[in-house]
């Protein structure tokens, strides 16, 4: 692909693809509609910069629309990494749907109080759930430590200090140790699978992709993929049981290990 005018024409021709891809990836990352507009502008600027460098790199080994979708996905990842570090919505939130993903992002990433997050979601027409219902939804998602140090004001620290007793700290330490132990065992079991099987498990349970999406991405038949996933889960289940762990729900345990 050469010539600035050719590149510009390609960019303009594929603007709908860029817009749609950005909107879809933004939803996966829990972006609110207002933030998506800012993100879309940023993505387009990055594609345009340096004389359409992203388009100049296109070699024709794939269709331009798939290529641009991947470019958008990588750019959105960069955008999020710059702003929030490595934080991503949990697989659990993705499974629970868009409202859950956005709620988790607002509360756990952005640090908003639940009431404010609920108000934002309702005002944007994304839900009609009450704060109580949203709190029940939030409680179903795993709590994770922030990946970057977050600023907390001294008043909050004092409040937290009065809540924390030595006992609750001890209980939290024990729970964290178990969680870490489970995570290592699950990692070891997964590492014994073939590369493709590992990827299938990770895409399904870490990334929350549908079987249809995984089949499409790996060019596999969809129907046998269900059986393959069941078999892989059974193998992991067996490995965990041999390690002395009796997981009640393997999918949730895999989610905890993400």
């Amino acid at each position, binding site marked *: 692909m050469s010539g600035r005018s050719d590149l510009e024409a390609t960019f303009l021709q594929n603007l709908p*693809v860029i817009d*749609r*891809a950005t909107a*879809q*990836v933004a939803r*996966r*990352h829990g972006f609110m509609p207002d933030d998506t507009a800012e993100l879309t502008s940023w993505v387009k600027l*990055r594609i345009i910069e340096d004389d359409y460098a*992203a388009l100049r*790199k*296109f*070699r024709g*080994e*794939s*269709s331009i629309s*798939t*290529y641009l*979708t*991947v*470019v*958008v*996905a*990588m*750019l*959105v*990842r*960069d955008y999020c*990494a710059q702003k929030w570090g490595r934080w*991503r919505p949990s697989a659990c939130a*993705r*499974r*629970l*749907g868009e*409202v859950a993903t956005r709620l988790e992002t607002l509360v756990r990433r952005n640090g908003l109080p639940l009431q404010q997050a609920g108000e934002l979601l309702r005002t944007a*027409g994304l*839900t*009609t*759930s*009450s704060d109580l*219902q949203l709190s029940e939804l939030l409680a179903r998602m795993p709590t994770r430590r922030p990946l970057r140090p977050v600023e907390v004001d001294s008043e909050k620290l004092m409040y937290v200090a009065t809540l924390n007793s030595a006992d609750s700290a001890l209980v939290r330490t024990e729970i964290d140790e178990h969680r870490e132990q489970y995570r290592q065992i699950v990692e070891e079991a997964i590492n014994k699978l073939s*590369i*493709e099987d*590992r*990827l299938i498990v*990770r*895409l399904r349970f*870490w*990334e*929350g*992709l*549908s*079987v*249809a*999406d*995984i089949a*499409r*991405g790996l*060019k596999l038949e969809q129907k046998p993929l269900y059986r393959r996933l069941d078999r892989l889960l059974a193998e992991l289940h067996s490995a965990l049981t041999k390690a002395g762990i009796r997981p009640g729900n393997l999918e949730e345990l895999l989610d905890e290990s993400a």
Partner: protein
Amino acid sequence: MTTNPDVDAERLAALIEGRLPPDERERVLAAIDKSSGLRDAYADALAALGAMTPPAVREVPRWNFLASLTPLQKLEVAAAAVVLIAISPTVFRQLVPRGVPDTHDAIASLIISDGAANSVLNQPVWGVTRGDGENTLAPGARGIRVGAAIASYELRRSMGDSLSAAGALEVASLLESAPGGAIAANAWRALSSASDIAGSSVSEARRLAERVAGTERVRLGAWLQGARFASAASDTVFISDRTARSVAKAAIAMDERAETEFAAHQFEKIVSARPRDWAGTTTAVEELLRLLGAR
């Protein structure tokens, strides 16, 4: 842009489109496996492409074998088909996938205590929508909610509960904001104010609601709500393994999101487990209802 020097955006795109030779494909898969950054971008791209791609239209196979038959043979085949269908309707129904069953009779004949019924009726799956969101409901979600509301109405009516009138009004409220829903809404408002309601009036109102909000969606919403009651009553007839399979299939067909597919499979798994886990069944049913009725 974050890139792995060996695997760039175009390599990932070529992988997605199945254009890589086998050894190159293995190399790219290995790179994705090692790098969480690549894996995240790959997954996001796959999900975005999945959402942007319209569902493939299934081609109905053309059965051309009839063209090779003589006229007499065609007549024999036709006669055999007629005989089979005529003499064994039950067998035929067993062979053909039934889809979501019509739950009208099943809900009316549920044996459930007042306390159990009220505990379900007093726990709405969705947020309050009256005056707050009916107009923003997608057609699919509306159909599910209409079905659920009809099921609640039918249960209350079968129990002689005076609150069934309010239930009929709830159905009317969901229908009147739907395009062409005025007549159906009026039929349900009439049910709310009638003192002596004939079964035929309810059937007609239900038929109108299905026409406005979509038969499959209304039936699915009704079945799921009925399943909440049935689960509270530990009723194994209403929630059978076979029906659970049909319901899960219908849910996935109606809503292509990963979370719905996951919820549908979870539901099927829980229903088929022995001994029955009624609490788990209730949770799984409510999760499906919430997802399908919230779009």
